[in-house]
């Protein structure tokens, strides 16, 4: 046994960092085609955030200022949560159905697969965010000082972050039940600490410290910057860069969980 030559376990020189445009768009197209056969999911993804905003608007019927604050934050939080859920379940299904194993035995790069997913869900996130933002601004009278485009930009980055987190946690879920349970585990603490309920500086110092390293804090902060300022502030740029950086980092971590060889 000790003299065994290890030939086949030598990691093959994988072509890293190269994204093949054809394979990436084919993957994105395939993911969207799968969703098209599931119109109920699309409807839920797009309609539920809008209904929540309408609900919120009339919950705070007497205090429009509160609606402005919470509404803007939620425009950033909805895409994150929806994309997190959809991606974690979709990639979990890919892992358990054997299609991932088959794809990784084919000449598909991990980056192609992840970029394909990000592209498909990103497109969906644009539709969702555009509808929710439009509804909030022009129908529900959300009072925003800055540009609606900036709101959309933050919403899109949040969606990407949700996709990245979903992809990552799907590696640790053995079933759909577990994947759904990751939502309270990963998203709820961020929701409580992101400054939606009370300013982060008012929290216990330990919690403030924790919220400083959670990406959703910056997503919500970015939305609030647009809410209160006409121009792009330095804080806004920082927030956007942090959310984008986190999304990229988690996507890379997610790529590392895709293994060509499994036990």
């Amino acid at each position, binding site marked *: 046994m000790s003299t065994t030559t*290890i030939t086949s376990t030598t990691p093959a020189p994988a072509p890293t960092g190269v994204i093949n445009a054809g394979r990436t768009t084919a*993957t994105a197209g395939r993911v969207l*085609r799968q969703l098209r*056969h599931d119109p109920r999911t699309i409807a839920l993804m797009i309609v539920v955030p809008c209904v929540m905003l309408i609900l919120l608007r009339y919950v705070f019927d007497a205090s429009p200022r509160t609606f402005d604050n919470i509404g803007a934050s939620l425009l950033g939080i909805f895409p994150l949560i929806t994309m997190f859920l959809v991606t974690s379940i979709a990639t979990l299904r890919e892992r358990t*159905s054997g299609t991932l194993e088959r794809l990784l035995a084919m000449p598909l790069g991990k980056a192609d697969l992840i970029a394909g997913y990000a592209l498909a869900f990103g497109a969906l996130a644009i539709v969702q965010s555009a509808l929710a933002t439009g509804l909030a601004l022009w129908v529900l009278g959300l009072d925003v000082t800055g540009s609606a485009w900036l709101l959309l930009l933050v919403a899109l980055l949040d969606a990407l972050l949700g996709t990245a987190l979903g992809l990552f946690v799907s590696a640790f879920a053995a079933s759909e039940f577990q994947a759904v349970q990751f939502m309270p585990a990963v998203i709820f603490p961020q929701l409580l600490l992101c400054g939606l309920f009370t300013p982060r500086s008012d929290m216990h110092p330990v919690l403030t410290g924790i919220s400083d390293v959670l990406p959703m804090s910056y997503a919500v902060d970015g939305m609030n910057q647009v809410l209160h300022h006409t121009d792009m502030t330095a804080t806004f740029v920082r927030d956007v860069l942090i959310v984008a950086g986190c999304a990229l980092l988690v996507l890379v971590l997610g790529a590392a969980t895709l293994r060509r060889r*499994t036990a």
Partner: protein
Amino acid sequence: MMNYVPDPPPQPATAALQAHDLTVVRGPRTVLHHLTFAVPRGQVTGLLGPSGCGKSTLMRSIVGTQAKVNGTLQVLGHPAGHPALRSRIGYVTQSPSVFDDLTVRQNLEYFAAILDPGRAAAERRHEHVTQAITDVDLTSHADALAGNLSGGQRNRVSLAVALLGAPELLVLDEPTVGLDPVLRRDLWNLFHDIAATRGATLLVSSHVMDEAERCHRLLLMREGEILADDSPDALRTRTGGDTVEAAFLHLVDEAAAAARPKESTR
């Protein structure tokens, strides 16, 4: 341990698969024990043995998706799992690995785009997809969702994916399970046709012994070891049995008898 196993005779350069001292560990269990064998090119080789004997693990090792593989395993002249092999091997897993929420044609179009990407190849891809659907006799179901098909039909969609891109090596894990006799016969004819006309190598696993008669060569497996590596005729002659099943049972008894005195050396 190695001293008991004679070195294999030098294989001709035409061998599609060449394993030497191949061992695979899954969790606490050693699933494959020091396998040494070769599979010739351009033939249909059957991998037969009872459920749980390590057939699927061996196939996963060959296509490069199995972790913790020790020993030498050369596939089409490369170490197993080499990136150059990814477009040259067609692999069908035991349970169909296709997207249930896509139609048969959409499934194949996607996998075809992975093998042969780009807009310029669209026409060629369309041809390959149509050919693969015809090969597995699913033309009338091309626009049905894979999830709405029967188990046998989904198996055939999975097989069609493996046929895309005319691979040189087809690794098929129990492709005929749950199919009616007519379809089984048709698929075996297709396998032989692929070997004869395209010169492809096929490794087909089964736990149904009567399928063994349809193979050029057989690898008989039991409990992670290879009992025999021969043609069906030679096996029957050697063991004096009428069928491959009888030959298999004979070999199991023989191995059990031989294992008893050897047990202490392990």
